[in-house]
């Protein structure tokens, strides 16, 4: 795609990968044809990839951005935080989305916190529980409390629903709720916010955690230590489960990526973020930074 920008090392890697194929004459031929196609510039616009937690919001940012700047193309991909960061590093995507803090070795990337997101603990609406302490939530997810009865609910086993290992949401939950405790192995594992919500919405005895922006009527977000997960409580830092939504670029943003990131950080973009149920970047930033 971008032969100009390839370093020597990349080129060497590129061609050495062909060595394997030379055993397979036809294969070599086919791939050669296709790879030579790949040297032509084919893609206009930019690709954004990463966190599936951010993806549904980013889809809308892109929609609005493209409506405002006709002719600009934004391609939003899922894949997960790590895949997105990886994609930004290798250039497979111009912008990566991460719903977890960058790891030290990933800090070479430029990061932009574009929004904050609350984590809501959700249960089925028919469940009479309204309020749990952080301690109780931790014990439930650690598998130490196994019946709703122990926290004042119906006499039935709790069905714990969690995200998969490596997910940014799980990472944030682990850090903010579980601490050193492990999430029980018996929990049901789903690989996105939406699926966790669907499982909880369909199961009267389930408990899970999802992005606050995605809570809707079919599930109930409970109070944590008596504090409701509302925007006000998050901005005032009374509700504690908050994490950043980060966009990353490899090096300083180019013209195209710059416009998009600036658009999200502009008052118009931040207004949109607020409408989506997220918390604008500037509102929590300093306090939450202190909080970490």
């Amino acid at each position: 795609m971008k032969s100009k920008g390839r370093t020597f090392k990349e080129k060497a890697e590129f061609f050495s990968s062909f060595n394997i194929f030379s055993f397979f004459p036809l294969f070599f031929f086919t791939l050669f044809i296709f790879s030579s196609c790949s040297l032509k510039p084919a893609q206009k616009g930019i690709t954004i990839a990463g966190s599936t937690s951010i993806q549904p919001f980013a889809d809308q940012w892109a929609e609005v951005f493209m409506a405002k700047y006709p002719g600009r193309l934004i391609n939003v991909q899922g894949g997960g935080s790590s895949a997105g960061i990886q994609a930004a590093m290798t250039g497979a995507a111009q912008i990566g989305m991460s719903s977890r803090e960058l790891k030290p070795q990933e800090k070479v990337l430029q990061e932009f916190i574009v929004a904050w997101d609350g984590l809501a603990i959700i249960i089925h609406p028919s469940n009479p529980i309204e309020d749990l302490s952080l301690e109780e939530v931790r014990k439930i997810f650690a598998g130490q409390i196994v019946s709703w009865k122990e926290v004042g609910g119906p006499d039935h086993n709790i069905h714990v629903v969690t995200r998969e290992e490596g997910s940014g949401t799980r990472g944030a939950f682990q850090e903010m709720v579980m601490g050193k405790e492990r999430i029980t192995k018996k929990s049901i594992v789903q690989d996105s916010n939406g699926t966790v919500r669907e499982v909880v919405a369909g199961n009267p005895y389930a408990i899970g955690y999802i992005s606050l922006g995605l809570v809707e009527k079919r599930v109930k977000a409970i109070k944590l230590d008596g504090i409701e997960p509302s925007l006000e409580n998050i901005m005032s830092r009374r509700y504690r489960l908050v994490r950043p939504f980060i966009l990353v670029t490899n090096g300083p943003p180019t013209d195209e990526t710059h416009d998009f990131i600036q658009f999200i950080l502009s008052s118009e973009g931040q207004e949109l973020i607020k409408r989506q149920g997220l918390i604008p970047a500037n509102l929590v930033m300093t306090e939450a930074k202190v909080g970490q």
Partner: protein
Amino acid sequence: MGNRTTMKGTESKEKLIRLFLLATALSAISILALISVFIFTEGLPIMFRHGFKKFLFSLDWYPTEGHFGLLPMIIGSLMVTVGAMIIGVPLGLAGAIYLTQFSSKKVRMVVKPMIELLAGIPSVVYGFIGVVILVPFVRENFGGPGFSVLTASIILGIMILPTILSISIDSLMALPPAYREGSIALGATEWQTTRMVLLPAARSGIIASIILGMGRAVGETMAVIMIAGNATSLPRTILDPVRTLTSNIALEMGYASGEHRQALFATGVILFIIIMVLNTVANLTSRKMSR
């Protein structure tokens, strides 16, 4: 003279065509080799680094903390596959026997393609049906969260049914008619003939169909991820959630990086080996049949 050169021309052209076709024909095996090379180079190094024992026999899957025990997933795959066999084999075989021995040709010509249609239904649709119908049904009637070994087994059983039915029918139909006629002429009923003559004679084809069905059950991903619950603990009952090798890969691939990602490729290595063993066994048994 002129004639001779054209002759030579066509000859070398023919040779060239043959060479080209040979190259084409090697594509399938090359792709297979390529897939193995890539999966193994991505997955094997981490297995060497941590030791195969740890991968195969540890119960702890905490990939972000460096624990890569795949035993729960290996056993999980085994459990849902056995479960799928329990559902799929009787249904498939019964269909094959009924359609070849007890029904008219007309019925068979209509029913066989219809059941084969089950193989065409996308696995995501099976998963979806599982989620909206079977999961709540199991939860309300048997207990547990509904996402379970049982649910996955039922759906997988239905998914492998057409494979078993279709190949078993083919191998029963391939038997010489004399087998059947001879046995009936000796006064045996159709069922006695089937049980004592035809089934043993078609044995290798039927076994091959079952092994291929197993391969499909082991390899199925999307349906299983939707209905099995994906817990990394060993299920104690068939009502507990379970994670298979395939869903382990698909679930965590998105967010995995570094060693975690390599461990998922290692999962792919184990899956690949299981599938290749099943393939080879099926291949050998069905070759035995054709002899």
